[in-house]
């Protein structure tokens, strides 16, 4: 589904990502791990179109997407979250979800101004979808709060819901468990697995929380200082000597 080949990203003299390859198949959760500054988020930014990679290829469903503008990539069905939550803080929770669905609602101005039946039914559908996902992540009662006033864990969940209402094929989560307490992390764990199982979404995950990564990942890619270090199932990675040295500690 997603196939990244020899991806490189250079910032001036700094080679932030060097020849990284990874792939995500349908119905799969793949994690990228690595020490801080290893270049994980840079890989994400390249895939999601925020950076134009200096080298390599990114194929999504067989089509090359490297260098395409970010909004087009997201319309293809690859949607991401951010390491630091990025919500539309002064808009309400449900408005955050409605913004994300503008594509499903993209009719011309006139039909919206005079509220044609077609426009109404589309709007109702997007409201229903928003309600469904708010219920799913347990935020329905807070639907009309300002998103900026939610607790941190709720903001994290809202960000995932906001991605899901766009009906993506591949969901890219950048450290979704950062700043969550153990109970919230467990909920998140279940949510991500259910996204894969029940909604048939593939997930590409960056995470530092090892228990989460080892629990839910089908495969793991390890990056160190911009270079790929190892790849494989959680068990293989856990036993890989290089990985243990670089990341998990020598003990």
């Amino acid at each position: 589904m997603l196939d990244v080949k020899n991806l490189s990203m250079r910032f001036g003299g700094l080679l932030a990502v060097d020849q990284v390859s990874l792939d995500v198949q349908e119905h799969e959760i793949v994690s990228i791990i690595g020490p801080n500054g290893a270049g994980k988020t840079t890989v994400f930014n390249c895939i999601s179109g925020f950076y134009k990679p200096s080298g390599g290829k990114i194929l999504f469903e067989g089509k090359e997407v490297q260098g395409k503008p970010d909004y087009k990539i997201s319309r293809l069905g690859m949607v991401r979250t951010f390491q630091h939550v990025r919500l539309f803080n002064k808009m309400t929770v449900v408005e955050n979800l409605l913004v994300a669905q503008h594509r499903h609602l993209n009719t011309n101005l006139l039909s919206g101004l005079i509220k044609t039946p077609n426009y109404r039914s589309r709007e109702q559908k997007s409201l229903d979808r928003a309600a469904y996902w708010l219920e799913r992540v347990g935020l329905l009662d807070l639907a009309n709060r300002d998103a900026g006033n939610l607790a941190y864990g709720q903001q994290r969940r809202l960000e995932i819901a906001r991605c899901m209402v766009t009906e993506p094929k591949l969901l890219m989560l950048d450290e979704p468990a950062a700043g969550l307490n153990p109970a919230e992390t467990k909920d998140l764990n279940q949510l991500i697995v259910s996204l894969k199982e029940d909604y048939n979404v593939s997930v590409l995950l960056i995470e530092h929380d090892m228990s989460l990564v080892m629990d839910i990942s089908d495969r793991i890619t390890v990056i160190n200082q911009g270079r790929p270090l190892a790849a494989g199932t959680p068990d293989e990675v856990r036993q890989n000597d290089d990985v243990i040295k670089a990341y998990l500690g020598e003990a």
Partner: protein
Amino acid sequence: MAAHNFKHALFCAVVTMVIAFPILGLNLVARGTRVGLEGADASTIISVFVAAAIVFFFQLYRDTIMGNLGKLPALNPLAGREPMPQAKRVKLESWALTGIIVLALFWPFFVSRGSVDLATLVLIYVMLALGLNVVVGLAGLLDLGYVAFYAVGAYTFALLSQYMGISFWMALPIGALLAALFGLVLGFPVLRLRGDYLAIVTLGFGEIIRILLNNWTSITGGPNGIGGIPEPTLFGMEFGRRVKEEGNTSFHETFGIAYSGEHKVIFLYLIALVLAVITALVIRRLMRMPVGRAWEALREDEIAARSLGLSRTAVKLSAFTIGAFFAGFAGTVFASKQGFISPESFVFLESAIILAIVVLGGMGSQIGVILAAIAVTILPELAREFADYRMLVFGAAMVLMMVWRPQGLMPMRRIHIELKRQE
């Protein structure tokens, strides 16, 4: 109080003296052909010292004074009350608004011509402020050259009527569309700019348009402006004493009433009212539509908006274009009301005033912006005697607002959306 307060207070008092004394305490007097310097009279000098003393004591006891100010009762005594239920409030508001509009329709028939004229100006500013509210309040794009679109609307009508004899009703959509086109054209180069940079470029754009109008004398008449702009007609009926254009009839003769100059003023007021109401309704609708939400999303977080598939280009350009469109509307009405326009009407100060209206009213809030437009336009007229201090009072009001109510007169209220629980 601490010693540093004393030092600071002394310093402030000295600065007050240093600044005030040369400005107020010394006068230039013409003695024949030469200019001499003279000390001011005793009362001025005393007042300079008094001012310095006031500054000194205020700074000395600043902490205490500000502390006590904080304890004063809140400006809004209703702040603590439970808000009304959504449905009830919406109903009440729509009734009140309908009432106000009906009142506004009949009001001009009972008041003086001057008031109606002023009210028309207020409505023009309402249109301008509502349009700029889209750009600044909703999309968060600081536009300091908004008056350029206003000028485009006004000059479009003036030029079309001068060279091609086009009437108000034809020029209204043309002026608005042309202004929208200018908005689109300005939008392209500034797509990548945000905040300060955007403000500077739009400021420059506003000046370019004004200077162009000023110097392109062969077409625009330069600083002399364009006169003789026709008034709107009502189904081919003119409001002047005599019919100017062939084929038209005059309003007072058709209805067999005596000629009165007020008819024209009232008619213009009604046109401005209808257009302002249309502007408000259309923008209100847009705010609840995907495009309106996209504007706000872009203001809140551009990167997140892009990651969700919103095209920055489309969203920014639509905000610029729609904002400019309504400025073009306002410009056409303005040209028709004045009958004469010159580049002097479209200086930077106009942009600043419209922006001030949006900020005072509360970014994004339509009712707030309308109230602020009324206040900012009418207050200077009421305070004609203090005309010299107008800008001073204006500035003071702005500072006080920013201290006590930075969110504006009536901050934007989010729309409450009822959701059905899904199975």
